[in-house]
Structure formats: structure tokens, C-alpha cells
């Protein structure tokens, strides 16, 4: 039996082919170092375990960093310092929060459904972690390279809303019940535009596998223009649709209706305390990571570098560099916008996002039919596609906000 880890030191730091460089292969090498000596079926099991542990550990620590970052950024945007008492610049705040959450009493209402009340946070977290498994974080970094990983992702993602409903129902609290109602309505409304926004990508990449979708975006036109889907008219529209709908999927402001603080106190979280509450919190952040990660994978080129010579930077770094601005955007929006009302939320989905996503499907079909057009025809192709994207947006946007406008006031 060979010991593959031995070859680790013989690799060049920068290779002619970026896929061969040491930093790019480091995750694989590390894995082989740990499990290479095991016999085959055991090795597979150990590899899977390593993938699971790595995913959970990395995202749990990202969650800790993110809670601190969110509070700091929100604080700055709201012209206050944010947490700054625990450790230098408040960096130990997540630790303090964790200890607090763990030592708090876990209160279950006497009339609550004890089993469901316990199950809800666990299933929510489980499904959130499942969604994280299929995203390719780097060239060699994908937990589970499924054939139909796109379908898998959305199936697992939709199941998280079920847990929110479970929590709301099991708490036997009227606010929680209203939140559960809202969560279901939101799920039905926003799962559709979310999926429809992804279909063009699947059409153009002709694969349901995330890794192949990333590979389809891995080249550069004229040697410098990345062929990411977001740089096409249909891809740009799809990205915006996907990202808007993912705000609703992740229960983030301005679509955070299930836990609308000023109306429903804490919505489905009203009757949760201590560690169960922390689990909900964690799962929501995991959902946000997963949706941002998929947005990066589907539209922003995944782990591909923006310019050819930048491939010497490892792919997972590029993934992170694309992920963080999206996460920052989540915080930024949260600090800015008021919340929609429930009927406006559903109307926004059904009358605006879904029709636009359907039209975008047609745009993508046109785009894939006209791949052969070149020269001046290329300009015509762009013009038609841009019109197909912008035209409906303007028309339907006008209809959506009819009757809502700033007013002039008279004086006595």
C-alpha cells in the first residue's frame, strides 16, 4: 500500500496547470494523509465523515464570525459601536453568546407539543447542513458531488420551512401560529421564483450538477472576459431574481415576516429559549450561507477566478471572496429597509417575480438557440435579450407600484 501523503512535499507551490498547484490540492492531500491507509470501504466512510465534519466545523465557525460581523456592521450603519466589551474589539462576543445560550434554562410551555417542539430546531439545522453538502467550495472541495445536486439542494432547502411551521405549530402560541401560517405562505410563494430563476442556468449548462455548472463558466472570452452567467442578460436577471427570492427563503429582512419582531414578538421563536433558540439562529445563518453559496455557484462563476492569471490564487479563496460581499449585502439590506406586509409579499412573488422568471426562461431559450450568431449578429442578439429582460421588468414594475408615489402637500 502506498502512502499518498508522502508526495505532499514534492509538489511545486505554483504549477503550470493551476489544478496541480499545492494549495489547490491541499484539501485532497490532507484527506488522503488522514485516510489513505484505510482499506477501501472504510476509507470511503472515513472520507465522508471528514467531509461532514469539515463542512460543519467550517460553517459553524463562519456562523460565529458572521454573528459578530453582522452586529458590528449593523452597529456601524446605525451609528453605534456594536459589541466591544468582550475581548479586543468584541471578538470574543460569539463565545460569550454561546456560553450564555448553553447555560440558559430551556423552557418548554406546558401545553406545547413536547416532541415536535424538540424536533423542530433539530430538523431545521439538519436540513440546513444538508444543503451545504453539495455546494462546490473549490476545485476539489465538494462534500457530495451528486448527479442532480441542484434538485437535491432545493428539496433540502424547502424542507427547512417545514421545520419553521413545526416550531410555530408545536409552540401552542398564537403569535407562533401566525408565524407558521406566514412561513408556509412564504414558502409556497417564493420557492417557485427561486426554482424558476435556476432553470435557465440548468438549460444553458445542460447539467443538474453544480460542479458541471461551475465548469461551464470556467473560460474567458477574448482571454479576459469571464464567461460567468451573470454577465449575460438572462443570467443577470436570473441572479437578481434568485437573490431577491433567497431573501425570502432565508427569512431575512425585508422578507422576515415569520419572525416579524414588531408584530409577532418573535414569531415561531417566541416559545424557544436557550440552546434550541441558538439552533434556530444557527440554521437561519446556514440557510443564508447556502443560498449565497448557490448564487455564487450558479451565476457568479463558482470558484472560478475572474481573470486567467489570477488562477494562481486557490479556487476556494475566490469562492470566499465572492461569498462575503453577498453576505454583507444581506446585512446591508437588513439595516435599511422596512418590512413588507404579508399580502404585499405574496403579491410581489406571484405578480412580479414568477412572471419575470418565466419570461427569463424564454430569454435563456433564445440565448441558447442563438449561440451560433457572430459578428454584427452578436450585437442583435444582445439587444434582443436585453430588451426581453428590461422591458417586462419596467412594465410590470410600473403595474406593481401603481398608486404608490410620493405626495405633494398643501399648506393652510
Amino acid at each position, binding site marked *: 500500500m502506498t502512502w499518498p501523503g508522502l508526495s505532499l512535499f514534492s509538489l511545486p507551490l505554483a504549477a503550470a496547470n493551476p489544478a496541480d498547484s499545492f494549495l489547490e490540492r491541499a484539501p485532497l492531500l490532507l484527506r488522503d494523509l488522514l485516510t489513505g491507509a484505510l482499506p477501501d470501504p472504510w476509507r470511503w466512510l472515513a472520507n465522508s465523515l471528514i467531509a461532514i465534519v469539515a463542512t460543519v466545523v467550517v460553517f459553524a465557525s463562519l456562523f460565529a464570525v458572521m454573528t459578530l460581523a453582522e452586529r458590528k456592521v*449593523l452597529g456601524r450603519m446605525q451609528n453605534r459601536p456594536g459589541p466591544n466589551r468582550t475581548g479586543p474589539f468584541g471578538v470574543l462576543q460569539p463565545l460569550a453568546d454561546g456560553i450564555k445560550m448553553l447555560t440558559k434554562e430551556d423552557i418548554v410551555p406546558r401545553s406545547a407539543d413536547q416532541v415536535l417542539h424538540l424536533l423542530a430546531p433539530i430538523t431545521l439545522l439538519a436540513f440546513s447542513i444538508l444543503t451545504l453538502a453539495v455546494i462546490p467550495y473549490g476545485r476539489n472541495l465538494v462534500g457530495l458531488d451528486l448527479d442532480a445536486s441542484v434538485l437535491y439542494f432545493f428539496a433540502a432547502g424547502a424542507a427547512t420551512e417545514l421545520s419553521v411551521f413545526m416550531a410555530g405549530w408545536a409552540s401552542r402560541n398564537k403569535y407562533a401560529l401566525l408565524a407558521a401560517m406566514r412561513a408556509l405562505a412564504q414558502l409556497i410563494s417564493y420557492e417557485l421564483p427561486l426554482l424558476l430563476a435556476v432553470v435557465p442556468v440548468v438549460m444553458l449548462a445542460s447539467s443538474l450538477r453544480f460542479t458541471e455548472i461551475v465548469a461551464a463558466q470556467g473560460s474567458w472570452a477574448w482571454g479576459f472576459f469571464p464567461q460567468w452567467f451573470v454577465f449575460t442578460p438572462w443570467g443577470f436577471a436570473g441572479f437578481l431574481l434568485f437573490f431577491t427570492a433567497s431573501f425570502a427563503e432565508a427569512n431575512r429582512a425585508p422578507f422576515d415576516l415569520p419572525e416579524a419582531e414588531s*408584530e409577532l414578538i418573535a414569531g415561531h421563536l417566541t416559545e424557544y429559549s436557550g440552546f434550541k433558540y441558538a439552533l434556530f439562529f444557527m440554521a437561519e445563518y446556514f440557510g443564508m450561507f447556502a443560498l449565497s453559496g448557490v448564487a455564487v455557484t450558479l451565476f457568479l462563476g463558482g470558484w472560478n477566478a475572474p481573470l486567467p492569471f489570477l488562477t494562481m490564487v486557490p479556487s476556494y479563496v475566490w469562492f470566499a471572496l465572492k461569498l462575503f460581499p453577498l453576505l454583507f449585502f444581506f446585512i446591508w439590506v437588513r439595516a*435599511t429597509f422596512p418590512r413588507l406586509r404579508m399580502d404585499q409579499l405574496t403579491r410581489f412573488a406571484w405578480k412580479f417575480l414568477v412572471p419575470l422568471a418565466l419570461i427569463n426562461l424564454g430569454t435563456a431559450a433564445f440565448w441558447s438557440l442563438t449561440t451560433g450568431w457572430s459578428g454584427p449578429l452578436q450585437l442583435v442578439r444582445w439587444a434582443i435579450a436585453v430588451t426581453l429582460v428590461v422591458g417586462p421588468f419596467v412594465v410590470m414594475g410600473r403595474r406593481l407600484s401603481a398608486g404608490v408615489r410620493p405626495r405633494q402637500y398643501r399648506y393652510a
Partner: protein
Amino acid sequence: MSLFPAPSPSGVSVRPVNDEFHGDLLEISMGPHHPSTHGVFRMQVTLDGETIVKLKPVFGYLHRNHEKLGENTTYLASMPYTDRLDYLNSMTNNWAYAIAVEKLAGQPVPERAEYLRIILAELTRLLNHTCLAGFLLQDSGAMGTPLMYAFREREKILELFEALSGSRMMCNFQRFGGCRVDASPAWLAAAQGVVDAYGSFLDEFEALLTGNEILMARTQGTGVLTPQLAINASVTGPLLRATGVDYDIRKVDAYGLYSRFNFRVPLGAHGDTYDRYMIRILEMRESIKILQQALRELPAGPVMDPKAKLRGFRPKAGEAYGRIEGPKGEIGFYLISDGSPNPYRYRVRPPSFVNLTILEDMCLGQTIADAVIILGSVDIVLGEVDR
């Protein structure tokens, strides 16, 4: 039971009872512990889905016998108690009470004191409306940012109050026949600085959210109050003017020296939540004009009538009602004197309490999310509602 329920006073017809076809109504007690009831206030809400079919405001949790206390203390000793009515706006409460007592005793007020009172009242209006705008946007879900910006500006005004009266919120500043202390030139310069910067703060604040589509969609057309209902319920203040009724006591009574000042009264046309928000923003801009003029024209002289008597103050028997345009509406004090050191009857006319009575009419047929911002736009302070 009639098949078609009678429309409510606000014209919205709602389903009155549970029946098998429509399913059950859900009764929720919002408050007294709720993030957006602005204190210990409770709304007993009956919901059909998310639509409100019945809303009963419940208050009295903060009742502390204010009016009876007023009968059992001397006139002057009631002044600090008025601070605690609407604890955001102690300066205007003081002024309204001082006006009532001055009417009762026929007590004149020096010119400088009248100017100082107008300056403090308009600063209070800025403070109150800024807080309200911040809280209203917070209630509509804007996650603290507008509120924090509003509180930053409020703090500047509170610092002015503290420098002048010794207390940020419980100012206890007015006396019968003038003000307690005079404003120093340094204080006036500081006030001028705050007033000068306020316009640009309002621009910044409005740039953040006033034209925001979500905010407009949330507030336009929700919580409509008709002028007829507003007048019948004796609603006053920005709430009334948002319905388009031109009634501002600063113009109607021209109390103090308001007749000398140039300012306009903004009027709404729809009476909805957006109008109530915008009227306050526009009123703040008018207040800035009044403040600029008052600070420019402030005359020299005493701030207290030298003949005014504070200790052993016994107005002759009679009655008087003094009122001013407070930031929330007409705040008035009704006093009956029997010639003794204490008033025989001491009655407060609180704007929040009267304005709150039409809450159900504004909320019927709206959703629970709207009820929260409608309550926010009414602008209540429970210290004043419950007294």
C-alpha cells in the same frame, strides 16, 4: 343576526361572528408586554386570518392618580408632576399648565420669557416628531437604523434641555409668570447650532426612507381616518391635520407670541399613515423656521415677572382652561380655584388619550401588521394616556 353586517364608523364592513364556513376567529392580546405597543398598552385584537375584525384598546396600567394629586398639592408643586404626563415633552406640558394658572391668576409674562417658551416648545416639537418618525419606521420593520439616527438628534436637544433646566427629560422649567432661569448667551449659541444643523439631518433622514417604495406601499392607504370622524372624536394635532382639517391652536388661539411668527401649517389629504408621517416631517421644517426667527429676535429683559408670587400663591376663586398646541395635539389644563393654595379641581386634557379613542376605527379591516404602524402613527405616550 343580519346576513350583511353593518359597516363600522370608518366604513369598513367586517365579519362579526365565527361560522363554519369561514372558520374560527383568532383572539390575540397584543400587550401589555409587546415590542411595539410603546409602553404598557394592550390591544385586544380579534383576527380573521390576519385581518382585524375587532380591536379593543385596554389601558390604565400606568394610572397613578395624577389629577387627584393635583388637587392635593399646591399649584406650584404640581408643575414637576406635569413633566411625568408626556415624558417626552415636559416643556410643553409645563407651558400648558403655566398658561392655565396664569389665566386663573391674571398673571402677565415678560416678553423674553414668551420667546424662550416658544423656543423650548418648538425644540420639543422637533424632539417629539423625530422620535415618532424613528419609532414609526422601526415599527414598520426598518431594524433600528432610522431610530438610532433619530435618537442621535434627540440627544442633542436633550443636552440643551439639561444645560438649561438641569434635567434631560423632567425639566420642570416653567413658572407662573415666566421661566425658572434665563438662557445664557452660550446656551443660545448652542441652540442656534442645533437648529442650523437640523434641516440637513431631516434631509438625510428623509433620503433614507421617505421615498422608499416599501414604506409607501405599507403606509399609503392604511389606517385611513376621515375628517368627520376625526372632528367628532375631537382628535387634535398632526393626526387631525393629516385628514386635511386646518386646526392648529398656534394659529387659532395665537397664544404666547405666536402671532408674530411666520410659519405655515401643512395639511394632508388622505388621512392615512403616510400623511401622518409626512405631516410631522413637514411640521418639523416649519418649527425650524420658527426657531430661527425666535433665536434671531429674542429680546433682552427679565424672564420672570418681578411681581409674580410663587410662595403662598393663592389665586382668587374662579376657573380657567389653558391649552397649547403640543406636539401630539391639544394639551390643556382645566383648573377650578376656591381661593385656597390647592386647586379645587385639576383636570388634564391629554392629546394622546383622546387621539387613541379612534384606534379601532382606523384598524378595522387592516392586517395585524398595519395595526402596529397605525398605533405608531397615532403617537401615544402611556404616561399621558393613563395619567
